[in-house]
């Protein structure tokens, strides 16, 4: 029983870290609500990445608890009351760190896939 469970957790962690980074990246352009974030990630990735609400909302609430974002109830241009999330200063530092780690990883994976000729 032990091993599969550990593997499962690792997978979540990897995805979680990535999703968190993507959310923070989206919020770089200003405060946004949950629906807006999922739409933005979808549009930016050319509809390749689809964020499940079951992952998005837990991630948002976790980020808020960690102090990387803060939330506020505002009205959208269309007159809909929604909860807007905004990146905090710590969030910005976190995003920078996430990015760096991501790029290192991409480089590393790239180096494995395309060994130096």
């Amino acid at each position, binding site marked *: 029983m032990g091993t599969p469970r550990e593997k499962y957790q690792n997978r979540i962690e990897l995805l979680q870290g990535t999703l968190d980074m993507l959310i923070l990246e989206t919020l770089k352009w200003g405060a946004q*609500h*949950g*629906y*807006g974030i999922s*739409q933005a990630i979808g549009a930016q990735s050319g509809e390749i990445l689809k964020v*499940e*609400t*079951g992952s998005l*909302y*837990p991630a948002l*609430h*976790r980020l808020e*608890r960690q102090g990387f974002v803060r939330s506020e109830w505002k009205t*959208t241009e*269309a007159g*809909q*009351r*929604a*909860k807007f999330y905004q990146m905090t200063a710590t969030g910005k530092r976190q995003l920078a760190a996430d990015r760096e780690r991501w790029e290192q990883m991409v480089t590393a994976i790239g180096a494995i896939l395309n060994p130096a000729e």
Partner: protein
Amino acid sequence: MVWWRRKRELEEEIAAHVEMAMADRMARGEDPETARREAEREFGNAALVKDVTAETWRWRWLDQLLQDVRYALRQMKKSPGFALTVIGTLALGIGAAVAMFTVVDKVMLRPLPYRDAGRLASIEFESKQVAPPWGVPLLDIQEWRKWDRSFSEIGYYVGLGGRNYLEGSNGSQQVMATIISANLLDLLGVKPMLGRGFSPQADSFAKSGDADAILLGNTAWRQMFGADPKLLGKTVKISGKSHTVVGIMPPGFAFPFAGSAPEVWMPAQPGPADGGRTSSTPGYEVIGRLRRGVTPARATTELNVLQKQIAKGYVDKDARETHSRFRISTYGDTLVDADTKHALLALLAASGLLWLIACVNSTNLLLARAMARQREIAVRGALGAGRWRIVQQLMMEGLLLSSSATLIGSAIAWMAVKLFARSLSKMLPLPVSAAPNGLLLLALVLLTLVSALAASVWPAVLAAYSPIEPALKQGGQQSGTSRARSRLRSGLVVTEIALSLTLLVACGLLLRTIYALRHVQLGFRTEHIFVASMNIPGYKFEGKNLTSDLYEPLLERVRHMPGVEAAGLISEVPLGKTFRIQLTLNGNAADELDNAPKTVNAQLIGVSPEMQGVFGFKMAAGRFFNSQDTATTTPVMVINRAFARLYYSNNKDMRKIIGKKLWHLEPGKPAEIIGVLDDVRQAGITLKPSPEVDLDIAQLGPKSTAYEAMEGMAMDLAVRTDRSEASFLPELREVLRQADPALAGSTMSTMDQVVEDSYGSQRMAAHVLEIFAGSALLLCVAGLYGLLAYVVTQRTREIGLRIALGAQRGDVLWLVMRQATWMLAAGVAIGLGAAYASTRLIGSFLYGVRAHDGATFAAVALVLLAAGAVAAYLPARRAAGVDPMEALRAE
């Protein structure tokens, strides 16, 4: 609550998400209905999103808890009868235990307002053969102070005697005045709140400046002087005598520890009389502070050795004998008499028993239910619910049931203590308030937890750890109950029956006692008599004659009240326990007593002639007082049969005693015996009549020897009338007020009530046990019924099959009754054994019945068997009435 707000916010957030998605779709041209459906589909499982999101909060456990509570409440609503039975059962058990604990706590565990009170010990004479002398002569105390090593300090005190009145800024009030040795406050470890204590020399034989000093208790200071701090150094009067206030004691201080009456203290003033060891030497009560590590038993041994030397100082041989042994006990232990303590502990044990029965009963109920729900639990287990989670949920159910039970139980306890407060205050030194204290609340919480654990966890664990598959496979109610478990449940019922029987036997014995007490020949009539117990402010009549100035005019007025048949005065009505005067005659005062030992002891009673009419006293010989006996005629007295029997050798014919001389009313005027009264119960219903000497109040005057004690302190007024309490007592109080304002506060009662109150611990114990035993009977019958009803439901199919195969209805009836019979028989047998072993505990309360009274045991066993048979017959009849077709088709 934060958690609720977040939950609402999350719902709103999700709703907004769907709204916006829908708006976008509509903007792309979809119709509203499709847009909503598609938006919702795209969002996914909203409930799941809510759950996983909420899991990121720190409140997860609370969510689960609330879920469990909701689940438990739903279960309770589904079978309200079951919930009510369990709650009622537990509430009864907890209520009884808490009520008893409140009383025991108030009486026996209360903290005394002294420093390190556990080391304070009282020293009393002890004697095996005769009544031990009361009080210790000062000479002995001084020897102990000099030689004894067990105590770091020894002090003494004595009540001022009689009734004392403190004159305050607005009227006078009765106070408890105590004479104390100068070191007593230091010994108790208490300092006056204002001013000082007595100077250390105050109680030496030398005269000191503190001779007329007084310390006021906080209550007296507040009530009578409005808490005036300038009272220090001023003069106050106690029953007319002036004293200088030197200090005020802190609130809550009381010594001796009894009641809440206002108190004052004065320094002891040893006089020439204290310089001897004879029968006329004043005696003091002694209290000492034990050195650290010294037990009362060790101190007793040491003091007894020491006293062997000191007792040589007693010239009289008998006195030397009686003054040579001591009993030293912790001061706190002396405050409640052994009988009361015993009664309370026995009742506490009984309440514990009832609580146990309640727990067993509810465990049985919960167990039955857990079995009935076996399939549901199995399904939940199969669907992936963790075992611990299932146990948790069942535990929550038990906890909910038992905390409701605790709430109701404490309400029951509160009411019970209120209800019994009156009889309690008659037997206990302190008024008992119903308010529980911190310790009690702690005990309450513990009781709840224990009962919750006992009643729910065990069946919960059993249910959760039972294998899932068989329950699922066999399905439904017909699932085979394991033999071991049904045996366990029967065992619980047997236990219940046995415990209940024990309580029932104890109750039966006490009821027999009460019956016997009510049929004791009292020797006087009790119906239609009102009694006013008066405190006489004797100091106001200094220089006057109480007989002619207070009593005769008062009696005259009462006699002329409408509806009064007869009215009289007596220093203490029989069984009154108000004011007892002890007469001790030495040497030649008892000249004509031919069978007299050196000293004669008797109760001295002052009475007016009409009392015979009020109480219907019967004469064994001669006559009672009448209106011809006055202050100017020959002094006469009446004795009782017990006196005659004890002190006259020639007592076969009581008439021979008439005309004999005995004692005197005034020095030089011997009194003549004119009558012998038949014995009445004076001090207690169970106590044999003691020797008594009656004097006529009309013949008493200021010159009489016992005038002060007989007339100046207390007097009971007894009135025979057919009028009702409500109409007569206010009128009587008004008449008393007119006679003297101080008498308006007299305690009013009826003679029936006085007799009732004198039953004391037996009556209270019987009442309490009646309730306990009745509840126990109810619980065990309910337990038996519940088990059999459950068994019948479980075996419906089997029974149906039996009937279909030709079993007679009678056989089926007997099938169920047989199971009941062996449980009842086993329970009763064990219970009789337990009762036989435990009734010795209440042996000292029994009167007119033995602790192992066969008739009571048999009667109680029969009652229980009959009640059990009825409880078993109902399910048995239902079993016999099972329709075989119906039963077999049911699955």
